[in-house]
């Protein structure tokens, strides 16, 4: 199973955000996408998930074109994502956030569920059980019946990943999963994500936290100014002089500050408008 970007391009007017990116992501691995702010990392995720349209080039999963599909169709094709600014269903309980992911496969039985109570009860029970397993995996089972919006920030991050998993995805796109987490939580997250590595799943992580990326990822894609700068294993990336120059080099300090500022904003729960 492979997710392929070929000659991918995104532009807003004259501003080119993604410029001719071609690469492939194999199943069974965790892929990291790194790069300075504005390099186009999140844009890649947003295009893959159908939040942004593709200006040119294509995205395909096992030969099936994803670009041009509607957002929900992409999700149903097996692409699940999390968001940079957490987007849970705040007034639904934690477990409902997961249960609702069964919608595409079960909606056709709605009438049976409504008019035939035994069937409804059986479905509800089955849904709850399978979702409870996922919650348990993330250590969230005691929050199952708590409203998602009232969970602590770190739990919300976890819950969002749990929701993505409840979609039984083939591709998991994580947009800065460690943003706003403290060291302890980041370590916990890293461990959980490592367990998610599976031969029939592609995992893509966009992240600023270098420790997390370097420990977790099997392969890293480095973006710079909308272009693909380098790809390879963590050690190769660390060894690459190009990457050092462009990313880990002189700009490093300022980026740390930016990343920290971004995390702080996320912590405050602000969903500020962003001009792309």
């Amino acid at each position, binding site marked *: 199973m492979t997710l392929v970007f070929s000659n991918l391009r995104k532009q807003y007017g004259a501003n080119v955000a993604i410029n001719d990116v071609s690469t492939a992501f194999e199943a069974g691995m965790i892929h990291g996408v790194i790069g300075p702010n504005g390099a186009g990392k999140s844009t890649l995720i*947003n295009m893959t998930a159908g*939040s*942004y349209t593709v200006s040119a080039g294509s995205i395909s999963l096992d030969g099936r074109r994803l670009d041009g599909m509607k957002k929900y169709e992409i999700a149903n094709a097996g692409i699940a994502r999390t968001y940079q600014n957490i*987007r849970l269903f*705040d007034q639904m309980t934690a477990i409902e956030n997961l249960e609702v992911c069964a919608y595409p496969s079960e909606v056709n039985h709605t009438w049976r569920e409504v008019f035939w109570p035994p069937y409804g009860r059986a479905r509800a029970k089955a849904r709850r059980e399978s979702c409870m397993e996922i919650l348990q995996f993330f250590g969230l089972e005691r929050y199952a019946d708590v409203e998602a919006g009232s969970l602590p920030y770190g739990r919300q991050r976890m819950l969002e990943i749990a929701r993505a998993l409840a979609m039984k995805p083939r591709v998991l796109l994580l947009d800065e999963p460690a943003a706003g987490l403290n060291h302890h939580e980041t370590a916990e997250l890293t461990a959980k994500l490592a367990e998610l590595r599976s031969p029939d799943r592609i995992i893509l992580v966009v992240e600023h936290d270098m420790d997390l990326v370097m420990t977790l990822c099997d392969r890293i894609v480095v973006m710079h100014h909308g272009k693909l700068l380098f790809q390879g294993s963590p050690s190769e990336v660390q060894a690459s002089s190009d990457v050092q120059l462009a990313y880990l080099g002189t700009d490093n300090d300022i980026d740390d500050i930016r990343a920290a500022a971004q995390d702080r904003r996320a912590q405050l729960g*602000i*969903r*500020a*408008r*962003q001009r792309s």
Partner: protein
Amino acid sequence: MLGTLIQQTVNALTIGSIYALIALGYTMVYGVLRMINFAHGEMFMLGAYAAFFGLTLVVGEIGSAGAFALTLAFFGAVVAIGFFGVGVERLAYKPLRNSTRLAPMLSSLGVSLTLVTGIQILAGPQPMMFPSFFPTTRYDFMGGTITSVQIGILVAAFLLMFALYTLVNRSRMGIIVRAVSESRPTAQLLGINVNLAISAVFFSGPLLGAAGGILYASYYGIMSPTMGAVIGLKAFTAAILGGIGSIPGAMLGAYILAFVEVGGTALLPVVTNGVLGTEYRDVLSFVILILVLLVKPAGLLGEPVSEESMVYKREF
């Protein structure tokens, strides 16, 4: 034919100017609070009543009011309603600022009901005569007729809108208001006094609305407690048509709506060969609104909202 055309154009411009004054209030409030203020039409009504009773209080008999007294009444009333608007915001909307979006909207419905009924009880439910703020003279012009009152309304409305536009774009307060409209949380982070901006909006919106109300009442020579409801709905439609949140959009929407209404009255029976009469005028307005929104979902001059930049996840 040309006479009719000129006539209808002047009519549309007059009505459009009044719609615009009110639509501005809707759009500014929406800009800073993302709230539909259903009580805004009542500011329009209160403006007329305030001017009328202010005048009665000062001069005693309306008929004897001189130009000075009328001017004084006009400005006194609009400023009073401006402060009243700020007070209403403090009492009825501010406690709900961090609540759902539906809550302040429905609170404003309650305010609207209270104000209309309050005036009905205080001043009586009957329509009342309103003194004309301009002496009425008719000018015949290429077969069309223009009255001095119409000219007065056009001039006054243009001046007010120009003043607002200048304030918003040039003054410090205008910059603050625009910053808050752009993003309230960011403005807050930057240390901008958000409350001040909101108060400014709730002062100037009702002020313009009240001015519209006085012009309107003196144009038609009449005021009634329910006059705000109908015109408020139309102005709101205009604001949405132009793209709610956008100040030029509100003005554009108002004039377009006025031209659609006038054009509908004039042309519907002709175009449909009598099948649809003038009674379908409002249907035409709404159909045009819907068509515009289908092509431009955020109105004519509104900024489209991209999903990643949604300020609010929940729409209500």
